């Protein structure tokens, strides 16, 4: 009985814990990172010796390249340039809006679909050469690298299908 009364009388002293927490919160706020970063690997062509991951097993290397212009994407291989659906000399995947005013107007979904078809023909090839024009924004370059690396819609289960993960960026066309 007397013990119970004792417990009631003594209140838990939370002040030291409060002090600790108040100091911890600003410290953790400073160290917290609310954005998570990732990297996209790329190697220099020609100047650097070929990386061991970039070997060509096929007799005829594909040398898949994607030209990025202010009209859209043009897909080319060692042998030929992929024509567009209209059959004219324009880019293989034209922009959704003419003149490609924003990075979003590039039709990356169609590019991914077409590259998926290329991958069906050349399942061992992993390299893609990107050839952007000088004026192309860096955001478009990153979007293109995303589109050529993997196809999120045609994967097995949750895993996206890998297309051409090894990107080489070439000097570009003027």
């Amino acid at each position, binding site marked *: 009985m007397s013990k119970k009364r004792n417990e009631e009388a003594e209140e838990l002293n*939370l002040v030291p*814990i*409060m002090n600790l*927490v*108040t100091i*911890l*919160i600003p410290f*953790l*706020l400073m*160290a*917290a*990172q*609310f*954005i*998570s*970063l*990732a*990297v*996209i*690997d*790329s*190697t*220099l062509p020609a*100047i*650097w010796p070929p990386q061991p991951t970039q070997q060509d097993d096929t007799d005829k290397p594909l040398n898949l390249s994607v030209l990025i212009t202010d009209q859209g994407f043009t897909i080319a291989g060692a042998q030929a340039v992929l024509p567009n659906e209209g059959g004219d000399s324009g880019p293989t995947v034209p922009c959704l809006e003419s003149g490609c005013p924003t*990075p*979003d107007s590039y039709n*990356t979904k169609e590019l991914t679909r077409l590259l998926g078809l290329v991958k069906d023909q050349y399942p061992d090839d992993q390299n893609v050469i990107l050839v*952007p*024009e*000088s*004026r*192309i*924004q*860096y*955001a478009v*370059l*990153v*979007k293109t*690298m*995303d589109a050529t*690396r*993997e196809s*999120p819609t045609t994967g097995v289960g949750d895993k*996206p299908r890998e297309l051409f993960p090894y990107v080489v*960026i070439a*000097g*570009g066309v003027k």
Partner: protein
Amino acid sequence: MKRSLRRQAGEAGLTITSMMDMMTIILVFLLKSYSTEDISVAPNDDLQIPMSTAQKLPKLAVNVVVSRKEILVDAVPVLRLERVADPETGAETVQVPDDMKTGQLIDKLYDRLLEKAETAKELGSRASGDQMDFKGQVLLQCDKRLPFSIVREVMYTAGQAQFGEFRFVVIKGGEG
């Protein structure tokens, strides 16, 4: 009246239980988002890192930041960029000042990167094991609105200074 108020306040005391609850929740949340990544970015108006679906985690390397204002190597400013109107479209674009480069090579950046490469090589030769070996890796943080011509010049310069493996830093999280 005055007396009764004072007495009430004295009896009530400060209830800090709910505040403690809140603090504990904040603490747990912050501990969860606490990270000790090798690189850090300080996004601002002139440095907007693009988003990407890439998943690869960044590793420590020489950090080259190209914002719309300047180029930095390991947080030290190397040179300022100038804003000009594009001769063809008239839109505002960014470029390396002509007197700062020889052809495609950005002189100041080249000198700084060569210095970094030499330091890294010396470190690698002194350290045991191949962990510190110079691999020529460079982390590139570029603003998403930069024209490719600048990125190309920076890449070319880095290539000349023996940095041949580029890692483009992007923000994880979907398309865009």
